[in-house]
């Protein structure tokens, strides 16, 4: 985004998003489907907290667009949700970088809820029936695995010197 800074490791970011997109459409047994965390959103949140000058609203929007294409949802539905949470994460990143991981997880819970609300809200507007309560289960699961995402991606970031 900012041309003058040295950028490296864009490849690692891209690959992490690709893996996230694969995890989104990976078939799961029926009972586990409602617990599938929003992998792409989590990965997006990590990168936008770690490298706010490189990954932000634009990347979030693109990632959401690809997720829409993969899932067959309306084009722009997840794009809107992810752009919004990337924006919020950028707003909060100064504070979030200083707090321990479990406190970050609480904020992540809030952000995932926002994203899910946007998606369901759009579904509601186009006349899809309201989701049942299980549909919300993915949010706490996502927040619960945030520490895992955080440490894995931090490892990746250091290993590949993503700046």
């Amino acid at each position, binding site marked *: 985004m900012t041309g003058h800074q040295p950028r490296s490791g864009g490849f690692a970011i891209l690959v992490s998003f690709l893996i996230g*997109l694969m995890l989104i459409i990976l078939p799961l047994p029926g009972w586990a489907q409602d617990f599938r965390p929003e992998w792409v959103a989590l990965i997006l949140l990590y990168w936008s907290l770690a490298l706010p000058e490189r990954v932000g609203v634009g990347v979030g929007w693109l990632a959401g667009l690809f997720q829409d294409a993969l*899932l067959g949802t309306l084009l722009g539905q997840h794009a*809107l949700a992810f752009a919004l949470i990337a924006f919020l994460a950028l707003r909060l990143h100064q504070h979030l970088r200083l707090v321990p991981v479990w406190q970050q997880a609480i904020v992540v819970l809030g952000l995932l809820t926002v994203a899910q609300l946007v998606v369901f809200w759009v579904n509601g507007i186009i006349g899809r029936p309201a989701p049942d309560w299980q549909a919300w289960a993915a949010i706490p699961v996502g927040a619960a695995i945030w520490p895992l995402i955080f440490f894995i991606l931090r490892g990746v970031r250091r290993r590949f010197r993503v700046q």
Partner: protein
Amino acid sequence: MRLVLLATVSILLMTLDHREHLVAPAREAVSSVVYPVRFVVDAPFSIAERVGERIALRHQLIEENRALRDRQLEYQSRLQRMEALEQENQRLRELLGSSERLETDVAITQLMRIELDPHTHIVEIDRGSNAGAFVGQPVLDARGIMGQVDKVGPRSATVRLISDPSHAIPVEVNRNSLRAVALGSGDPQRLELANVPSNADIEEGDLLTASGLGGTFPRGYPVATVTEVEVEAGEPFARISAEPAAALDRSRKLMLVISEQAQPPGPEAEAGTDADDEDGGQS
């Protein structure tokens, strides 16, 4: 600000995608970009299947072969009668002055083992516009109608199942040609019949076939079997549930209907000499 800009773009995109279907080229482009992701996720499953076929034991194969040959013989004999009946039917129709082609050509396609939006009933198949799939194309499995093609990418397509809450299919009762519309319920085992009067002649076990109205689905294919008819005194309409004939959540091999009146509008549209319902007077 970028967020505002992108949010506007998203809302615009969603509106266009939902209302106008104007963004089909855009969707096709994005779909071809993400196709590799789909392919990679699907690959282990299809490879495992193929390897399974390879290492199947010899006697298993022989046995399976024998069973299939027996079944084919059985079908063949039924088909002979069927052909005679079809010709007779055609003759009768000619006498009645209505023309209708009964045979349909199908292309076999496979479900991709990937999961889509959990809140809708859609599946992905491995045939796209490159292989001739088009929006609205009917999709069958061995037992009945599965759904219709909803979105097309170059190498894959999305199929909306008849059980999707936003899907409706015109049907008729096989026994007495009573017409109705079967709506998806969001449950793969259940369809609902809309606006059937309480006094209509419909009972449990009735077979519902596609009525061909609307021109999307070919007439005569089984859609569902009525499982429950609930009539409440004072209610103008009966509450009727039906179980889809197709194995919506299990079938892996599907068929795309190529011929029949369900062709995309265009110069190659079937030259119906005295077509009874739509696209009349083309030739």
